């Protein structure tokens, strides 16, 4: 099917219009959402992650690829809901309370989504209460938190404590990231993992779930 390659190319080159059009054509031709995701989208986002690791791609390319991927996902999601198809793993992600930086978090969210996870993005300046509520309601397997400022990092700890107090901590794996965050800090505050960048976040989530 020609669209498999075309969608892969559109995402890799960050062309959202093209990705949207190709996906539309594929749906009209009777393509199923899950194969499109696993055969076009996931390999494309994996290639994007690899190019980032190799320093060929940078933040603008990641954002563009993420947008292209999303423009295809928006067409596929309603079809999946209608036919009762589900992605295997659900991830809740947000930038912690007091911090408005969400570009890095957005890139991680789209890399995760492009890797076949269902991603619930809570946005920026997310309070511990809102993280707890999202875990209660959406029952994710993984919670990802981001902080870009040394002064907002402690909110990660507060959020982990809030999850503990709500009796939810053991139900989820917690992954943290952001420029000032270190693996040492992740250990200190009782997170399950840490990643230095977006493509690392994907492997970290996979490792945590042992689905690699």
């Amino acid at each position, binding site marked *: 099917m020609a669209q498999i390659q075309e969608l892969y190319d559109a995402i890799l080159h960050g062309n959202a219009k093209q990705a*949207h059009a190709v996906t539309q054509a594929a749906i009209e031709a009777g393509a199923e959402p899950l194969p499109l995701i696993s055969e076009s989208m996931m390999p494309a986002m994996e290639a994007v992650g690899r190019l980032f690791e190799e*320093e060929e791609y*940078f933040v603008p390319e990641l954002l*563009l690829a993420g*947008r*292209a991927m999303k423009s295809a996902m928006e067409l596929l999601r309603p079809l999946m809901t209608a036919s009762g198809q589900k992605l295997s793993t659900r991830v809740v992600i947000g930038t912690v309370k*007091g911090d*408005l930086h969400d570009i890095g978090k957005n890139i991680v969210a789209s890399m995760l989504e492009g890797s076949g996870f269902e991603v619930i993005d809570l946005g920026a300046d997310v309070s511990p209460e809102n993280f707890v509520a999202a875990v209660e309601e959406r029952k994710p397997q993984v919670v990802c938190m981001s902080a870009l400022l*040394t*002064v907002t990092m402690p909110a990660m700890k507060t959020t982990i404590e809030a999850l503990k107090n709500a009796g939810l901590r053991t139900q989820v794996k917690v992954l943290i990231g952001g420029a000032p965050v270190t693996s040492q800090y992740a250990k200190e505050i009782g997170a399950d993992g840490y990643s230095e960048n977006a493509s690392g976040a994907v492997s970290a989530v996979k490792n945590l779930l042992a689905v690699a």
Partner: protein
Amino acid sequence: MSAERVRIRLEPLSVEIAAARGALLISSLADHGFEFPCGGTGTCGGCGVRVLSGSLPVTDADREVFGADELAQGWRLACQARAETALVLECGQWRMDVLADSAGLPLAGMQVGAGRRGLGIAIDLGTTTIAAQTIDLGSGQVLGVETALNPQAGFGADVMSRIRAALHGADLTGVIRAALGQMVARLAQGRADEMVAVILVGNTVMHHLFSGCSVEPLSHAPFASPYLDAESFSPAALGWALPASCTVRFVQCLGGFVGSDILAGIVATGMTRGEDLVALVDLGTNGEIAIGNRNGVVCASTAAGPAFEAGTIRMGMRAATGAVSHVALDNGALKATVIGDAEPRGICGSGLVDAVAAGLSSGAIRASGRIAGGSKKLPVAEPVVLYQSDVRELQLAKGAIAAGFRLLLRRLRASAGDLKSIYLAGAFGNYVQIESAVRIGLMEAPQALIHAAGNTALRGAKLLLWAGDDPALPPIEHISLAAEPGFEDEFANCMAFPEAAGEPSMFASGLASGAHAG
């Protein structure tokens, strides 16, 4: 395996090293380009360091070389010292030129009012450096200058680490009041009774820490502080040796991360006196931008990160001896200028911008920021090279500034073509080659409009001091860029480099179409 290590930070280059506890500093410092002119015999005084944090006991050799004043200020001979605790040291031989301002008053085009009697002191309290001047309020003449590193450096290099230290109970207020008290005493020496007024300007964190206001509101979103007003003090309350009749005032802040240094800069550029649209850009870790005219000004801060000070650059260093400060393209090859005509040791912010501009022009760096050819390195001046990640750091920094600039212009419903002039404030703005800044897309305006303006904060502070009262200013609106729609798109658009000088970046159309589809 080895003895216990202690951490030592060397300012103003912010070099972090570890040394064995109890070992002589000479061995670890020599490895980092610090020189011992007499070979460490304790006689020449050329290896003086000032203790900003931690402690070094006074040795006999220290007493030979330094006066009581200097010893009290923390000066010691590095060659005689042993590191028993973690230390932050100011290295005398790396001393940076702190940008003051030689302009007397009145400036050209200013109305000359009735002269006041007496003397005043204007202080630009920066995160890294402090510049202060004595002014004759009658003639407007500059009578004396004092510059120093901000001694709060012992608590971290940037405003966020200062906030963090203050929240953990460290006394940053006492430290800065004492240091400024000494500077003021030197400036006022012999004529203290003539001192009428002291005026201070600085960023919002400096304002809060000097004034003793809590910095807690500045530690989290929405970064709105209830303490933005001007603060007045009596010299006695600060412990300063000035007459009781002398007023000390820290000028009001404009917003959470836009301080009175920018307000003073707006005054110094004369932006609000005419119809012409004028911009002021301070290129620092926290970039600040103000654009306006007599009808009003919009301003914002944008997190550029430390790349302009070469902070996150692998071979980066401050603008000191051995730093590549300028790079030009000579017959297709990069030709570097090194500060102090020394062997190149690293690259400073202005050299970085030049090197990338030259790389773009020669084709060694592509518009996407990728170093061509697969080596991921750009040799600048043996042994100094730029790594791929260095170019990326610069893309983040210049993207943040250019995006902030675009959003403020959009808020004014104006374009770069409507601007009459753009003033670059601060040390980096003073040394960066404007042609290179335009080539990399840091400044998106015709080169002829852009001027290095020096220390506009200090100049504005002098104008405020001289005027006596705050001048009537139009409304100054502070805009939170993070909350502005389209910031992420603009930031990403502005990260790529212009294809050729003056052309829009290759991603300009890409992300716009992505946004429509999404």
